[in-house]
């Protein structure tokens, strides 16, 4: 097992940069998600890791080996990586067993050894009894599990996932997420997982690299991304909450309740501003006093276990919070904000 290092990685197509200056160090056995909206360059990074695309600049190293740089390129065939594709990429003319066993056949592994390993891989994804079926005879979830078995059968150092759940329905996704988690636990392989779905990334990954417009926005654990996002774009992208304009304050720090209320009240009289992130659970409804903030209920939406309440401040800014009971629209209320996180402005 070895570290996977992306150093100053750069990629441009026809002079247009789609991946800019990415630096990531992925520890052996780590589950890493590349998260971002479509067109952010996450799939391009994955294709460079797989060796389908040469890099324009910078390099990818795996342990002591340089996989890609602008001078050298190890062919995909020589990388011993596994990959699970969004469209499964099962070969329709081969049975499940042959699909899973093909990488072993290419490596010229003897047939009894091969059969044993195919059997093992199918056991992990619980598809033993489907070995002789053709991919066309399987459901979407089963096909994805075959693809999973194929990616692990050679015991690769790194397994790449390219939006593997995008083609499955919601119900099946939760089940497959569980399968992926078990797969990671059992194989201990390094996993690089591309997705545009933040909840998928948050629930699966050890660490997440959030990308926007080809650049790395933030690289950290899911908890860190949620609690301490770097800028307003990321605060809007991950989790629920409201970004408020307040009087100027240094970025990347927690603001306590007293300071926050002061900043909000001063904002209307000042031109310069900073942005802070207020999570819904940090808002309390309180009886009126000199300290509290006056709001109006804008909207009340039933969400099952609770209500989403949209509030408007006196200066017109919006806030989102939750309530266990429904609230009357246009009714005035008083709230206290427990804390907030100050953000960098989006560059």
């Amino acid at each position, binding site marked *: 097992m070895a570290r996977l*290092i992306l150093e100053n990685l750069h990629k441009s197509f026809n002079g247009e940069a789609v991946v800019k200056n990415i630096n990531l160090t992925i520890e052996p056995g780590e589950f890493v998600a590349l998260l971002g909206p479509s067109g952010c360059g996450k799939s391009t990074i994955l294709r460079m890791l*797989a*060796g*389908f*695309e*040469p890099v324009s600049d910078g*390099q990818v*190293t795996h342990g*002591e*080996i*340089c*996989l*890609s*740089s602008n001078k*050298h*390129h*190890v*062919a*995909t*065939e*020589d*990388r*011993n*990586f*596994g*990959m699970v*594709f969004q*469209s499964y*990429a*099962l*070969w*329709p*003319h081969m049975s499940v067993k042959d699909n899973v066993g*093909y*990488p072993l056949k*290419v*490596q010229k592994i003897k047939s009894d050894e091969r059969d044993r390993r195919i059997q093992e891989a199918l056991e992990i994804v619980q598809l033993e009894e489907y070995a002789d079926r053709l991919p066309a005879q399987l459901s979407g979830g089963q096909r994805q599990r075959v693809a999973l078995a*194929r*990616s692990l059968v*050679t015991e690769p150092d790194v397994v790449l996932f390219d939006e593997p759940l995008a083609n499955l329905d919601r119900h099946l996704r939760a089940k497959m997420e569980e399968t992926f988690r078990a797969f990671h636990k059992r194989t201990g392989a390094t996993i690089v997982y591309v997705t545009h779905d933040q909840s998928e990334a948050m629930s699966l990954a050890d660490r997440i690299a959030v990308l926007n417009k080809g650049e790395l926005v933030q690289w950290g654990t899911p908890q860190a991304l949620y609690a301490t996002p770097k800028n307003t774009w990321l605060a809007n992208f991950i989790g629920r909450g409201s970004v408020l304009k307040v009087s100027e304050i240094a970025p990347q720090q927690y603001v306590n309740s007293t300071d926050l209320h002061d900043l909000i009240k001063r904002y209307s009289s000042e031109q310069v501003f900073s942005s802070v992130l207020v999570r819904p659970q940090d808002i309390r409804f309180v009886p009126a006093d000199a300290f509290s903030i006056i709001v109006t209920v804008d909207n009340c939406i039933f969400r099952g276990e609770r209500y989403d309440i949209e509030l408007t401040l006196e200066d017109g800014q919006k806030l989102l919070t939750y309530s266990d009971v429904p609230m009357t629209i246009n009714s005035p209320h008083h709230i206290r904000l427990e804390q907030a996180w100050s953000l960098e402005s989006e560059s």
Partner: protein
Amino acid sequence: MTPSLIKARFIDGPSMDSQLRWLSIGLFVLIATLSVVPSLRLLVEALSQVTLSASSPLAEVLRSERTWIALKNSFYTSGLGTLIAVVLGCGFGFVTTLTNIRGRAVWVFCFMLPMMIPPQVTALSWLQLFGPASPILNTFGIAPTLGSPQPMYSAEGIALLLGIQSAPLVYLALRTQLIALPQDLLEAAQLAKASPFRVWVDIIVPLCRSAIVAGAALAFVSSLGNFGIPAMLGIPAGYIVLPTLIYQQMAGFGNDMLSQVASLSMIIALLVLAGMLLQQWLQQRSRYALLGHTAKSISFRLQRWRLPLELLLAVILCFILVAPLFALIVSSLVPALGMPLTLDTLTFSAFHEMISRQGVTKRAFENSVFLAFVSAFVLMVVSLPLGYLLMRLPMRTRAVIASLIEVPYAIPGIVLAIAFILLFAKPLPFIEISLYGTLGIIFLAYLSCFLSVCLKPVLSAMSQLDPVLEEAAQLAGARPLKRLVDIILPLTAPAFFAGGLLVFLISINELTVSALLWSAGNETLGVLIFNLDESGDSVLASAIAVLVVMLVAGLMSLLSLCAPRLPKGVIPWHD
């Protein structure tokens, strides 16, 4: 951290595997030899004649009265033929594509058949249908008196057959456009209370106009290059068109005969090129941006008109296909030309003679089957890596190479044959082997001519293949050749098979190229029928032609059988 490069393989072009590089070089040489060199050789020969002296071969060709007569005749027969093709092709196109007519597949199959039947067989069967010696007319006792002229030996006869042969080209161009018309258009017009006739006149015809003109251009070009029909019908009547003029000049063995025919073929090539450019330009213009989904194409419900329309189609098909083929069969069953067919005269002696007689018939069969089989096989083997490499090229480069491959197929066979004579008239350098006068030269000409026929279905199948299937094999560690054999080949196999079968079908009946390249001992089936008819043995010629038609229909049916497993559009006569 300093990168260590212990295991990395050094490759100077990233992502280009060495296996792929060698494959590319090999195929580049092959395409250059097969596609580019013959065309260039012809150009050089023709251009080298452009001198100011009045005695140069080009000047002589241009001064000769026969050249201008042939040119005028070519334009007349091709023009009239195109007109007939447009009427037939559009009629069939609109009826079989837009209406709920019964047995559509059968109509389409029968209508496409004339395109696949070799022109000399078409000509032979029409000759058997009319004229004083017609067995059918004699059987009914209504044959014209002996000595009266055969009506097919005329410019109009040639034009009629050219029209029938190229009508499927117009049909195909029209049909492609009709299928793309969305049902929404019809429904919107119906909501506006337009009658079906108004819909057809106001909406469908305008949207198809350019497609029809493009099809007509294609029919004109193909008629211009047709050799079999004017050779069988024009030569006996002394009616000369450009391809038959070249053929007759070739027999002349004049002083600078080769230079003269090269100049003549350049004239045809230029005319054809102009036609092709016109057709491409029109086809691009014809692409109206069609809004709406095309999941369902337009279909009119014929009610009381359905039966009369079906009868009309049947009558037309009877006239252009069934009657001539019937005449052909009848003539193969009479003892000698001019005799009526009765139970007493019925004889299979022509078939007996054909099969049992040693010598030229057997040899021609063997030669044609051998040539067709080897050409189909070689082209299939070449198409796999060639298609694979083309798909990896950028769009623009791919288009350029694809049109280079198309050139030998597009230029008339007679021009290609001249190019090959020019190339191989002298023994090959270094190895001192002469291909001229062997089957080898015909074989090479077939490879050059039919490469695009075989490649097209393969390319279309490969472009429909999801690239991740190959990427997955790459991750599994498979190198290009292994991926080609394990993944790409099995998934595109039906298209391959179809490509090979199409090549076999076309080359086993080929006449034009082999008419100029054959030599004693190296006859092909096409040449044999032509020669037998020329020497007056049309009963035996008919018998062979009957077998050829059966072969064509059989192979076409075989292709139809594998149609469901092929990408759309690979088999022209199938949905």
